[in-house]
């Protein structure tokens, strides 16, 4: 995973609440077995018309925002499905930082796993940053994760909260799986050996033939 330290970029504003993952990447584009290549389908429903032509009014199609590295929305960004294709599509488009007053839980987690920094800010600050963003190329924002600050084009600094563990993971671009195996393998083994876990059955052994389940007369 790529590290996230400091980013200076144009920001694109999408002043909507509940920007769901079906909007970010519609289901018809999930039939891939790769992580890359989804950028062209980002916000497909709004970005293209039925014939696949670009909708010139959609923010990411405007010349100033074609290289936006930051996306700002209103409340509950990323609600809906757990599809990690949403952050993959954002990343593939070039977005490394998303800012909103609130996020849906799974999407918020998924961002960190892909080197995207999600920042929660009060609504008024999001609106102020959207105002900056409306000035296009002339108004770049700088997001500094080390200092937990956003620098507005007029020089004003907005600071943001960030969980220290997650911050570290992003700053160092750490691989979660390797970290867990390295630091916790012993604890996991001990946990698995606890006698209280003996009741948990295996998914490899079926206790009886399966064809009768759900038939009438069955309890259930």
């Amino acid at each position: 995973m790529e590290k996230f330290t400091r980013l200076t970029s144009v920001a694109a504003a999408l002043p909507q609440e509940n920007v769901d993952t079906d909007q970010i990447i519609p289901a018809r584009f999930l039939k891939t077995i790769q992580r890359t290549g989804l950028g062209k389908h980002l916000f497909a429903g709004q970005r293209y018309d039925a014939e696949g032509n670009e909708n010139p009014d959609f923010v990411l199609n405007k010349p100033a925002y074609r290289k936006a590295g930051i996306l700002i929305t209103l409340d509950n960004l990323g609600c809906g499905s757990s599809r990690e294709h949403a952050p993959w599509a954002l990343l593939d488009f070039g977005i490394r930082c998303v800012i909103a007053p609130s996020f849906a839980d799974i999407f918020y987690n998924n961002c960190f796993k892909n080197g995207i920094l999600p920042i929660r800010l009060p609504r008024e600050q999001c609106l102020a940053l959207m105002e900056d963003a409306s000035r296009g190329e002339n108004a770049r924002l700088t997001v500094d994760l080390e200092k937990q600050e956003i620098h507005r084009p007029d020089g004003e600094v907005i600071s943001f909260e960030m969980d220290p563990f997650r911050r570290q993971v992003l700053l160092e671009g750490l691989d979660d799986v390797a970290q867990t195996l390295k630091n916790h393998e012993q604890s996991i083994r001990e946990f698995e050996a606890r006698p209280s876990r003996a009741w948990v059955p295996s998914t490899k052994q079926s206790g009886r033939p399966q064809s009768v389940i759900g038939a009438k007369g069955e309890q259930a």
Partner: protein
Amino acid sequence: MQNPVTPRTLYDKIWDDHVVKTLEDGTSLLYIDRHLLHEVTSPQAFESLRAAGRPVRRPDATMAVADHNVPTSDRSQPVEDPQSRLQIETLEANVKEFGVPYFPLRSRQQGIVHVVGPEQGVSLPGMTIVCGDSHTSTHGAFGSLAFGIGTSEVEHVLATQTLLQKRSKNMRVRVEGDVAPGVTAKDIMLSIIGRIGTAGGTGHVIEFAGSAIRKLDMAGRMTLCNMSIEAGARAGMVAPDETTFNYVKGRPFAPQGEAFEQAVAYWKTLATDEGAHFDEEVVLDAAEISPSVTWGTSPEDVLPITGTVPRPEDFADPAKAERIRRTLAYMGLEAGQKIAGTPVDVVFIGSCTNSRIEDLRAAAAVLKGRKVAEGVRAMVVPGSGLVRYAAEQEGLDKIFRDAGFEWREAGCSMCLGMNPDKLSAGQRSASTSNRNFEGRQGPDGRTHLCSPTMAAAAAVTGTLCDARDLLEPTMAEGAA
């Protein structure tokens, strides 16, 4: 670990029993008992595993099935769409290579992962259950902690059988009293979402409690927990009780005999203690819940079927008014119109919310001896091959077919429009699924969420309507 005398919630207890280790910053490494996989969110995870040369740590705690983009028409033919076929074949190759139990596409056990897990007894009370799918919350109906994860987390669980998690807040939604005849679990859940909103549960795990919930069968509880995610919650759960144990008993992958009795003894200790703390508490009166339907493009846009669509001008907040204006335009509805009487083009009975045998029975009760209205396309997509088979044994398929419904194979189908079952632009559906987002069932499609009973009634009349008018008089009077 908490002090044992502190009263704990169901969530607290399952959490405590699965913490491998708590890290300095308060994050916990949580052990995962069940990992369910499907074809859409797993290929990239297996790919990374392979690249790092890592095995699946616990194939015996894992189960896979293809559901999202499988065709629900003829299964004897190869999957037509090359990309869908590739995803399914990739899953099959991965489960083989990594030794993961799998229900093949042509087996009767195949179906929607959230129907199959419970049906097979793979999902059990007291467990932590994850899947790369937000509706994993369904399995919480058993008194388990079940939640959706992203693909990177899928990889983490495959490799380590754990997840790094922060404890959520506790929320309790109590529904007390008796629902009126014709009111289903779906109506209860839509009403809850209408009340607390789609972000109402954010950061929380919801425990559903109260006398109306206790009276629900497992299918109803699954419907409820399924849509916890639409209320923004991390997970939904219902404390296990006799209804749960009776359902689980004898399922293929449940503990059998003596082991089952021991498990039940443990499961009985899980219910929330008297006096346990909830960060939020919401109470609904069951008697006030009506058959419900959504009018907009967010699951919180809920109305009783007797209600009228909102008017933008009734909202002081300009952003809110604008959203309503936009939603009405998308949905092709007039401000202030009655929702009943709105004509539908498609009726979809299926999805992990409402595709179990109980749901099909409820729909068939309305359809018996009736016909689908002219010009309406109606389809039933059972949640699993076993549900389909059971329905055929009971003759439900005949009721559906005679009425003019398509009787299909199991899968997600029109719930998300990944396989060929889609709405075309401007088409309106009455759907028993869980999401009415713009374009969810096909680009520019219009979705009205409702119960199987209501969907069946819409099929018959060709419009959204009050299903109670079509139910047997004895049932409407509460005698059934």
